[in-house]
């Protein structure tokens, strides 16, 4: 029967992919890939690196939802001469040594304090806390129909002295800070 044959073909195809990728695509695997991409589409002021080969520091504040995923993603990666390193932090730590700062959902209550601490510093703040970009963060990651979408607060990026590539901006929804 044709349906059986088609099913067989399908299974064969699946098997091939399974063999290649033992893992399903998890929410934080995709978000980690986004974080990695952000390092390529953001320009930090040169003065923000002590040397030309100083690392780009990705900080994760609060409970780390990535597990070892972020470490796997950045291992061996170099972006324009800068290796990537991961640093795990608490909200009350000094956050100013980071280039990218991912704020975990566990820090929702601390969010205003964290944003005040990094205000005016060239730090790309990223979070999946809801309405993050509207609250003054730079990049919000949200799940829409099980897909990861970006919201970018362009004014907040300019205020931080960061240049975000138009390629990134084009794919994101541009939002403004909410005043309240």
């Amino acid at each position, binding site marked *: 029967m044709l349906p059986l044959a088609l099913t067989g073909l399908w299974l064969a195809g699946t098997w091939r992919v399974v063999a290649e990728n033992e893992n399903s*695509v998890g929410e934080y*695997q995709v978000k980690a890939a*986004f974080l990695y991409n952000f390092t390529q589409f953001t320009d930090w002021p040169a003065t923000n690196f002590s040397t030309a080969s100083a690392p780009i520091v990705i900080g994760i504040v609060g409970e780390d939802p990535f597990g070892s995923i972020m470490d796997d993603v950045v291992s061996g990666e170099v972006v324009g001469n800068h290796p990537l390193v991961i640093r795990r932090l608490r909200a009350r730590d000094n956050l100013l040594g980071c280039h990218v700062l991912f704020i975990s959902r566990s820090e929702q209550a601390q969010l205003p304090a964290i944003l005040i601490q990094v205000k005016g510093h060239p730090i790309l703040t990223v979070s999946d806390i809801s309405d993050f970009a509207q609250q003054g963060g730079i990049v919000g990651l949200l799940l829409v129909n099980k897909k990861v979408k970006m919201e970018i607060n362009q004014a907040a990026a300019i205020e931080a002295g960061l240049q975000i590539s138009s390629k990134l901006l084009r794919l994101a929804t541009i939002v403004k800070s909410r005043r309240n």
Partner: protein
Amino acid sequence: MTKTGLACLWVSAGFCLVQPVMAQDNLVPILATNGPAQTTTVKKLAHLSLEELGAIQVDTVVGASKHEQKVTEAPSSVTIITRDEIQKAGYRTLADVLDSVPGLYTRYDRSASELGVRGFDNPGDYNSSFLLLVDGHRMNVPLTGNAAIDRGLVVDVDSVERVEIIRGPGASLYGDNAFFGVINVITRRGGDVNGAEASASGGSLDSYDVRFSYGSKFTNGLEIMVSGSYYKSAGYPGLFYKEFNQPTNNNGIASHVDSERADNLFSSVTWKDFTLEGALVGHLKQVPTGSFGTVFNDPNNQLDDNQAFMDLKFEHQFDNDLKLMARLGYDYASSIGTYAGNLGLPSPVLNLDNFLSQRLTEDLELRQTFFEKHTVTIGVQVVDNLEELQRNYNVNPPVVFLDDRRHGFDYAFYLQEEYQVFSNLIFSGGVRYDDFYTVGSTVNPRLALIYQPEKNTTLKFIYGTSFRAPSPYELYYSDGGVTQIANPQLKPEKITTYEIILEQQIGAHFSASASGYYNDIENLIETTTIAPGNPEEGLIQLQNLGSAKAAGLELALKGTWAGGYEARASYSLTEARDGMTGARLVDSPEHLAKLDLTAPLYQNKVFATLECQFMSDRVTLDGSENPAYCTVNGTLFSRNLVKRVEVSASIYNLFNTHYGDPGGPEHLQNIIQQNGRTFWLKLTYCF
């Protein structure tokens, strides 16, 4: 001459319910979180382009926050079909979507599509024993309880973001008389559309469809969506019905009387805490089956349904874990059924059913969480049935058989409680009191325990009752005794459900669920023909015909793999029998099996989906057998192969399987033949 398509059924027109808020919050599927991350996978992901990353559907979703994690588990068996699945499988109507859902099946009589759930579909019950919501707004028509799942739905399936199917009695949890379940259609928001889309499609049976949508989310938070579509189909040029195979009936050939037309306009505006939605739909279907003893092959036999609603919702989350929801809704529905009758005059006499209803619904709901463990929801609802008009009359010579006008208020109060007993045990309970101007009051409880013995395993134990009050149509409709007489003595139907559900995440790729249930139904309202010997011999009447019992098992398996491979498979076993005679219920398949396989053919841009649906034999109204069948559908779908363009090509009933669905009491046909192989091609351009 008689009743119309809309004509139908029960379920109380004015009840309602809803709690969309809860529904939506509860329905986010929670699955397990990240498994052991393998470097190769994440490395590959990291080197995809941002466009590709944005197109990946994640198959594991982590509960949003501590608090949300606690409420994520719906105390029900739930299936969600997403827009992505709708596109890849080429579904064109809500009925197509529901046909792919475990335990559900539809029946098409060439007038309308009707849904069967867990072995129940009373022919003659036009979709009134489940609740249909669009963004939380009740779509069951006030006067009849009928919910359109075909082209009569107010929103085009291409404007749907996802469909949530919540099985089981929803009387207390969802606050309405959802008898077998609740279907919530979530539409695309402005930000989802993000631009304009123009779509044109066409295919077999001389059919075409055009759609235009525009949506945007502005930086000040304002979100707007508007979508309109127009569908037209000539239908089969000739349909042969052996029951009418006489020279006076064109030798059984219904010639060019199968046409269909539908147009709809849907819009939503969201700003801050407010959401305003409005929609209208017109749907016209010619009836080729000679139902209700009408003149066969007369082009005048048709159903003309119109429906519209407005809904204003205010939702506010206060800082102290208090959530307020207020809603004001207006509904309008009209249905005109035209029936050509042979009264021995030179030309057929047209008999018209004219149903018109208007309803105002006000909801107020408060939800408070205490100490993050305990959530209490209270709600009140007032329904003003402004107008419920049923008329039946002959056009020429004019004779009025029925002119029934009513109005009245319905009320409801409900209380829900969710308590986290231990970190892995949730108790959920609720009760609702409803009072109808037609049939008085009823109270319905529901209790559920949700237990998570380990991270990937969830067990749910559910007990609940639900009811369906007879609608004004069921209570008061008659065509003056020509074919049908009223039964104002009808009582509400009552259902008691016991259910155990196991949901299991298996490895990284599969999620599975198994559900065992027992339904005990009393006072089931059925269309019956009055037995010989009575003065009304041979006429159709609705009666509380007694009871039915159903036990069943549903198994579902869903798999997703990187690269876009997806699989959905389900099997359901249902034993649904008449409570008194023990006979199998009409249109109740014992076995349903469904399989949907999607494979990426080219990058993340071209997908092939193959769908097989098997239904075992069913008993028809005359007690004979409607044979088992299996149909196969195939769809090729591509997005962004050419930038901004989506193309979809489908073949339905690929092997031209010859099969039928049981007819209703209004049909002479015991079995109504279904469509053979058909084609459909769709092109969409996104601006």
